[in-house]
């Protein structure tokens, strides 16, 4: 049965440092340490329960190193419940666990703000190189880095049905989640020339299902690391998305996916009739088709377009909402907002894609690139177009093109500023964030599903948080009000 779709986004940011000794690992560390010093964060991440090599299909790879070996680097936990660290030579920001898609938009934007503040803090350090951050997914030279989504799922939903149910959505949601890209950088398109494509990331995918995240990337990632009670929960780790700057795009990316996953848990997905004969190839085709009209080959030999598949999934989602309600994606209000937006965007894509240039990243960037080409008559291999593409994602206020576009907002600046320091109220992120805000010196390490306290004298005390829906403001706000010390809190928790 469907359970609330607690969700989060991890973004690996592109990073560039100038200067003779500049390298991306130290540049990433500088950013994170500069920010941590500014907000006085000392709590380190705890790797105890991490097992990224465990496979949802039921096996573990032998001899894999624990993540600590490769990331002996800046790694911190913030009072908003987020994790901010160096991963694979990139600064990575993992939002806290959010309760609904709109809240996640706010926390994803707060992540951008934290990266901007980090750039400012790093620039103030003596002798540091200029460090610049980009929210994108590739360098245009064949190197890609990810923006991963995570969704809480019921462990009893068979993984095989998750795979067949979600693939048609992952392949076709691109038409509104793509962040756009000038040119192509892999062999995914064969002899076809691609001047502009919908997705940053799609052409890097080569498999349908698998455990890898950096090579032979699969559409469905099987990492089975729930960061919660493994008997009750699964965390679907989604590596197939683009990093979005547009709030509407992030909202739809998460909202529609959460809804389809709830439908899969309730066995109400239309996926069987939407099965594609070659999803990997289909995803490349969708990315390259700016007309949104190219037929994809279905498993049954018929053809269907990405837009048609999205309309089918949308119709099934409407039926689902009518029958089961929308509580599992955050309630009727936010759920209806997802459905209404979804319908409006599909309608716009069908009739007048240009009208969505203030909502969808690939269309916003495309209008910019096309407008520039019209004015300057440049060819597609002109460096200025590649620079426009890169600067769309540039987080420096003076260089950002995205921030100069009249994009539609779903959350306001005050809410984003609050999310820089305040945790979501309706998940265990609340407890994590509040403990860190109240007693930073007593929390020795933290991770997604536990906190370790040092309250002096006794051995260290680990507080498990195996249910992402416990430790909310409703559950624990009164505890924080009535406890004067961390020892008192621990005492109350254990009684």
């Amino acid at each position, binding site marked *: 049965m469907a359970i609330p779709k607690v969700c989060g986004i991890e973004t690996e940011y*592109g*990073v*560039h440092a100038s200067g003779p000794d500049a390298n*991306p690992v130290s540049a990433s560390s500088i950013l994170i340490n500069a920010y941590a010093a500014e907000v006085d964060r000392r709590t380190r991440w705890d790797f105890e329960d991490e097992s990224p090599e465990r496979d949802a299909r039921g096996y573990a790879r032998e001899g894999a190193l624990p993540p600590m070996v490769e990331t002996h680097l800046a790694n911190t936990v913030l009072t908003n419940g987020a994790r901010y660290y160096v*991963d*694979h*030579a*990139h600064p990575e920001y993992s939002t806290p666990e959010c309760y609904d898609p709109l809240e996640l938009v706010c926390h994803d934007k707060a992540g951008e703000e934290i990266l901007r503040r980090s750039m400012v803090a790093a620039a103030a350090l003596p002798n540091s190189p200029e460090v610049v951050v*980009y929210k994108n997914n590739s*360098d*245009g*030279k064949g*190197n*890609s*880095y*990810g923006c991963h989504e995570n969704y809480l799922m019921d462990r009893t939903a068979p993984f095989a049905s998750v795979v067949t149910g979600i693939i048609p959505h992952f392949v076709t949601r691109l038409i509104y989640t793509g962040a756009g890209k000038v040119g192509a950088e892999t062999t995914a398109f064969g002899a076809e020339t691609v001047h502009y494509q919908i997705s940053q990331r799609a052409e890097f995918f080569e498999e349908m299902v698998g455990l890898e*995240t*950096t090579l032979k990337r699969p559409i469905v990632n099987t990492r089975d690391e729930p960061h919660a009670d493994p008997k009750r929960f699964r965390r679907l780790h989604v*590596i197939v998305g683009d990093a979005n700057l547009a709030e509407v795009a992030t909202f739809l990316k998460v909202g529609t996916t959460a809804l389809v996953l709830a439908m899969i848990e309730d066995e109400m997905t239309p996926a069987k009739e939407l099965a594609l004969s070659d999803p990997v190839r289909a995803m490349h085709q969708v990315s390259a088709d700016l007309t949104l009209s190219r*037929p994809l080959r*279905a498993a049954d*030999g*018929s*053809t*269907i*377009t990405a*837009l*048609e*598949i*999205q*309309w*089918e999934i949308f*119709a099934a989602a*409407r039926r689902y909402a009518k029958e089961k309600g929308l509580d599992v994606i955050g309630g009727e209000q936010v759920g209806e907002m997802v459905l209404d937006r979804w*319908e409006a965007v599909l*309608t716009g894509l*069908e*009739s*007048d*894609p*240009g*009208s969505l*240039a*203030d909502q969808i990243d690939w269309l916003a960037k495309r*209008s*910019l690139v096309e*407008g*520039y080409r019209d*004015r300057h008559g440049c060819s597609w291999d002109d*460096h*200025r177009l590649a*620079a*426009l593409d*890169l*600067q769309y994602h540039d987080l420096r206020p003076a*260089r950002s*093109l995205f921030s*100069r*576009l*009249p994009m539609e907002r779903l959350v306001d600046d005050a809410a984003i500023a609050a999310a820089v320091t305040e945790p979501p109220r309706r998940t265990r992120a609340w407890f994590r964030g509040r403990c860190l805000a109240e007693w930073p010196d007593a929390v020795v390490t933290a991770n997604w599903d536990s906190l370790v306290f040092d309250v002096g004298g006794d051995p260290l005390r680990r507080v498990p948080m195996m249910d992402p829906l416990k430790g909310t403001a409703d559950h624990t706000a009164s505890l924080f009000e009535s406890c004067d010390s961390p020892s008192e809190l621990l005492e109350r928790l254990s009684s």
Partner: protein
Amino acid sequence: MAEREQRRRNAPSRTETEVVEEPAPSSPRGEKLKADLDDLLDEIDEVLEDNAEEFVRNYVQKGGQ
């Protein structure tokens, strides 16, 4: 391979009377977006990196996840 059908999507919002969908550019929303874009394009050279070629060439990332 005789039976290859072209499927029709089921668009709940579509009604019989909605026949003409063009022309998009004259929609007030499209016009407004275009005007805003023109303003940005007028000043974009001040925002763009001076040496686009070098800027793009220097942006090299290690692969990630």
